[in-house]
């Protein structure tokens, strides 16, 4: 019986062949195991750092702030998963306990990237700029960077917070339209003046920079309240130029997974 179970014991040469084969296999097995173990550890580390993982963007098709980040991701060629957060449905999906854990301000966007959960559109854009510097969105010169950031902030803190969904809810349906129009007009008056000094083809010279990402969504909202844009020729001109750029087309509110059918572009365009 022993010979059936251990044929290697039949003869010494046979045993030696068996032993060598086993050792080699053992080495291979050990190496394989080591490789698998190290790869598992490396994958786990990279997964923990989020680097192998596709970024996730929590967004609403029409949210200015989410739109800005969509443009930044498109400009930098970053593929991501889109997760809809409807700002009106069910009393506003941004108010759920689950979403609040991601974003305590109960706002969109939230971007999960590199293992981090990021919120606030301007800091998110700056993070993308620092970690993916190809296709730069900020100039190198500190003074010009300050100008770019200031133009972005005219919209980011000077206009948009005064006309977002939370404020419209607080002001009430009746007054919302006039309220929104007032603050956008006020902000655009200042922006038009500032742009007359800095603009070339785009907000700052002839390269797309951060303020361009803020401009386009704000103009969309201005048009929704029928603001007369002919008062702002520089803003209008820049908007037209930006709308030609692929990344801006991709990120547009009319082309998102959660864009309602009646807001999508017609098949003719």
């Amino acid at each position, binding site marked *: 019986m022993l010979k059936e179970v251990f044929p290697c014991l039949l003869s010494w040469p046979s045993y030696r062949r068996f032993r060598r084969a086993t050792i080699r296999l053992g080495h291979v097995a050990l190496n394989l195991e080591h490789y698998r173990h190290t790869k598992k550890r490396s994958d786990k580390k990279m997964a923990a750092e989020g680097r192998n993982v596709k970024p996730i963007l929590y967004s609403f098709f029409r949210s200015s702030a989410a739109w800005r980040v969509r443009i930044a991701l498109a400009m930098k060629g970053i593929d991501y998963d889109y997760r809809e957060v409807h700002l009106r449905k069910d009393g506003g999906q941004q108010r759920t306990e689950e979403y609040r854990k991601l974003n305590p301000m109960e706002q969109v966007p939230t971007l999960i990237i*590199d293992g981090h959960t990021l919120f606030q559109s301007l800091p998110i854009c700056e993070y993308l700029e620092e970690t993916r510097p190809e296709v730069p969105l900020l100039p190198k*010169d500190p003074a010009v960077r300050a100008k770019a950031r200031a133009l972005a902030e005219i919209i980011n803190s000077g206009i948009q917070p005064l006309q977002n969904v939370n404020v419209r809810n607080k002001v009430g349906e009746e007054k919302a339209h006039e309220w929104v129009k007032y603050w956008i007009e006020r902000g655009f008056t200042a922006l038009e003046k500032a742009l007359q000094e800095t603009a070339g083809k785009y907000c700052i010279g002839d390269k797309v920079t951060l303020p361009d990402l803020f401009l386009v969504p704000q103009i969309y909202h201005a048009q929704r309240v029928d603001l007369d844009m002919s008062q702002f020729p520089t803003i209008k001109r820049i908007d037209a130029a930006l709308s030609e750029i692929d990344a801006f087309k991709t990120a547009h509110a009319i082309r998102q997974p959660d864009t309602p059918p009646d807001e999508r572009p017609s098949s003719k365009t």
Partner: protein
Amino acid sequence: MSIEKSKSPIHSVTRMTSKPVLYSYYRSSASYRVRIALQVKGIDYEYKAVSLIKDGGEQYKEEYKKLNPMGQVPTLVIDGHTLVQSLPIIEYLDETRPSPRLLPEDPAGRVKVRSLAEIVNSGIQPLQNLPVLKKVGDDQKLEWAKYWIERGFKALETSLQETAGKYSFKDEVTMADLCLVPQVYNALRFGIDMSEFPTIHKVYDALVTLEAFKAAHPSNQPDTPADQKP
């Protein structure tokens, strides 16, 4: 006026060294933030008062609006540039005078600090500044201001519970602290109960003992009314 080489490792330029000029109102949050930044970085500057109340608001005068088209304070004239918007100004100071830093070195830390700053800068302050309160009207402005400050502070409190050490972000003073202190000053003026926000309160109490924060305080400015000086 003399010319000296910049010591900035990031950007080597030749700078004019006439004193920077800060257009400020003693009680403006945004001016207060930039005053703290200038103090932290040891930058001597000339103070030019812009009253937001007198004559319907000096910030709306044609002459001032040439400097700052939004008709807001602060404006900082520095290195031959006219800078507006408090956070871009602070970022400029940090890039050109990097010591002591007001933003961490790593991108993950920087994004956290900027987000905390923006909770205040775009999430709270614009909703309770003077033009908005005027638009809302006298009988509703207090309730309106309290509503937005409390709402923003709830979010800030949650965020700080993850990031705060001695100050808003770990144990170093950052741009987030420069936004927190003026907003708490405003909150106290509007009668907000700060006991609901223990982390914010704790960080605030730690910061206001620092010399730079004391020097920048609204009660210590050239245009502080006599009855509000210490």
